[in-house]
């Protein structure tokens, strides 16, 4: 989903940067508040950030004969919501833009918007919605959340490129062409990412449930059930 350096006309770079910057700033502020309130969330936050690092570095071959990578933002979106996720995602994108020439500094705003804001935001709404029903277990909910975060990210990237490069003046046909490159490749990867995140979420409940309980992600009853499975 990285839009490469220089591949977005400057007016779009500015627009996406202006949209992303306030979200990341607000995320930083929320992050600071949360850590001041309770320092015990810090390790879990680090693990979620590390997850974005690991998963977004794995280039996995997919059915269309090209490779792409998961985003890893679903776990953080489910646990911490989209704002803090936007900060974690931005850290990774800056690392990749500077050291790997993967993505870019001019396109950073657009990449942050798709991977660190739009994807996690939609995914977080899905997660909260699923959990509100009270019928979906944590593992399954995180699975869906991570897959949605991944797919939305790539859909938004396709849209960003289509807006900047409409084919023969039509944004829709350009969107379909870009989506064919990204979104279809991404479906199997979204499932893989979902499986990994779902398993990890359940593992965290088994070894360290109190942080998640503090965040209001999970209740006592479900913790006991998931821990019982490990016995």
């Amino acid at each position, binding site marked *: *989903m990285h*839009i*490469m*350096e*220089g*591949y977005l006309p*400057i007016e779009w770079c500015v627009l996406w940067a202006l949209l992303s910057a306030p979200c990341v700033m607000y995320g930083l502020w929320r992050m600071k508040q949360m850590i001041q309130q309770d320092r015990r969330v810090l*390790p879990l936050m*680090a*693990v979620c*950030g*590390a*997850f*974005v*690092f*690991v998963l*977004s*570095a794995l*280039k*996995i*071959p*997919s*059915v*269309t*004969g*090209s*490779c*792409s990578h998961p985003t890893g933002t679903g776990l953080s979106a489910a646990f911490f919501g989209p704002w803090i996720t936007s900060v974690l995602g931005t850290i*990774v994108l800056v690392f990749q*833009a*500077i*050291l*790997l*020439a*993967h993505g*870019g*500094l*001019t396109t950073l705003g657009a990449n942050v918007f798709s991977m660190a804001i739009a994807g996690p935001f939609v995914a977080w709404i899905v997660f909260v919605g699923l959990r509100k029903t009270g019928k979906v277990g944590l*593992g399954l909910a995180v699975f869906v959340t991570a897959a949605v975060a991944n797919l939305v990210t790539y859909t938004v990237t396709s849209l960003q*490129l289509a807006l900047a*490069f409409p*084919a023969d003046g039509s944004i829709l046909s350009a969107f379909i*062409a*870009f989506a064919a*490159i*990204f979104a279809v*490749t991404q479906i*199997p990867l979204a*499932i*893989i990412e979902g*499986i*990994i995140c779902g*398993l990890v979420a*359940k*593992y*965290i409940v*088994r*070894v360290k449930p109190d942080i998640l309980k503090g965040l209001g992600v999970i209740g006592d009853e479900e913790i006991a059930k998931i821990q019982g*499975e*490990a016995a």
Partner: protein
Amino acid sequence: MNRATLEIILGIAVIVIFVVGTLMLIPSGGEGEEGWGGADGGAADMIDSTGYEPWFNPIWEPPSGEIESLFFCVQTAIGAIIVGYFFGYWRGAKGRKESE
């Protein structure tokens, strides 16, 4: 075997089947690396075909594919160390609490 272990084994199996299955079933479409290029590059190629010229170049690029993979490894390693450290720490702390 308890359900937790079973879940992890199944999860890993599904992922391996997915990846290996893909590599076996889909013709790579080109010789060597070409056929399995990145989707990001695919989109860039499509933009190139419209005659668009990138207006800005990366301030620094890894001098070769090997060095690029070095930095990808570093990225993964940083993440894996953090995840491994805290998972191990939590597990150890939980074990201590239970044995008391």
